[in-house]
C-alpha cells in the first residue's frame, strides 16, 4: 500500500489512487471504526434520520481529511471535493424499533 500521509498519531494508506483506504492509529490491535461510502450528502441525512428513528445516537461531522479508519467496497462519492468529507457516526449498541 502507499503511505499518503503520516504523523505520530496516524498514518493514511491507500491501495491505489490518492484517497485513503485505511488509517492506522497507535494503540494496539483491533478496529476503532469503519466506514460505508454513500453517494451524496443527502444519503448521510437519510442515514441519520433512520438512526434517530431507532434511538441510535449519531453525530455528523465535516472534515478536511479522510476520517475513516477502514472503508470498504470502494467507498466514496461521485460529487466529491478532494480531502473534504462529510460523515455521520453511529455510536452505541443497536436499539431496534420494529
Amino acid at each position, binding site marked *: *500500500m502507499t503511505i499518503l500521509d503520516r504523523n505520530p498519531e496516524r498514518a493514511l494508506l491507500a491501495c491505489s*489512487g490518492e484517497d485513503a483506504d485505511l488509517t492506522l492509529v497507535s494503540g494496539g490491535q483491533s478496529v476503532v471504526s469503519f466506514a460505508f*461510502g454513500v453517494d451524496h450528502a443527502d444519503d448521510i441525512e437519510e442515514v441519520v434520520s433512520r438512526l434517530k428513528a431507532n434511538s441510535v445516537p449519531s453525530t455528523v461531522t465535516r472534515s478536511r481529511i479522510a476520517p475513516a479508519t477502514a472503508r*470498504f*467496497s*470502494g467507498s466514496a*462519492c461521485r460529487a466529491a471535493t478532494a480531502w473534504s468529507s462529510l460523515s*455521520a457516526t453511529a455510536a452505541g449498541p*443497536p436499539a431496534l424499533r420494529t
Partner: protein
Amino acid sequence: MEFAVGYGSRTAGITNLKSDGTFRPTDIDHINLLGEADPQEVSDFMKMVLGFKQSLVLTIAGKWAASWLRATKLDHDIAYMQAVRPSDRLHHVAFAVQDGNHYFRLSDRLVETGNRWEFGPGRHMGGKPRDTQGFGTNCFAYAFDPTGNRNEFTSDMNEFEDDESYMAETSPEKFPEIMNGWAYNMPESFMTQES
C-alpha cells in the same frame, strides 16, 4: 460505524480490481466483526435500519452463529459473528485481489518480507456443498500484520439479485470443510485468534 461521502474520485459500492501487475491489494473489500451481541439481532439492525440485505446465515443447533450481509450485489460487505473472547471485536479486514496471479505475487511478496500466510489461498464453501457459485464461496488468503490483526485478501466474490439469501445449519466439526473447499488445512488459530 461511519457513513462517509466525499472521498475524491471513488464511487460508493464500486470496488477497484485493477492490480496493474503489482502485488498490492486493489481496494478495501469488507470487514468481519465480532462481538457479544446475537448475530441475528445485529443483522436485523443492519437490514431494518440501514437497508442491508441478508446473504448467508450459518446456524448451529438452530441458533444464528454467523451472518454475512451486503449493501451491494456482491456476496458480503460486512460479516458478524460472536467473539470467542468477549472483548474481541475484529476477525479480519479484507482487501480486494484481482485474480489468481495476484495471489502468486502476494505470496512471493510475503516470502520476500519474511512472512507467511496463516491460511490459504483457498476457496470458502459456506453455502451449498460443492457449489462454487453460491453464497460464501469467494477465494481467500489470510495473513497477520505486525499488530496481530488478521488481514484477508479476497477475490471472486459472486453477485446476487436483491432478495437472494441462503441459510444453512452447520456444526464446528464441519468448519474445516466450510472454510476451505480446496483442502482440509484450516489452522486452529483461525477460529481462536481474534483482536
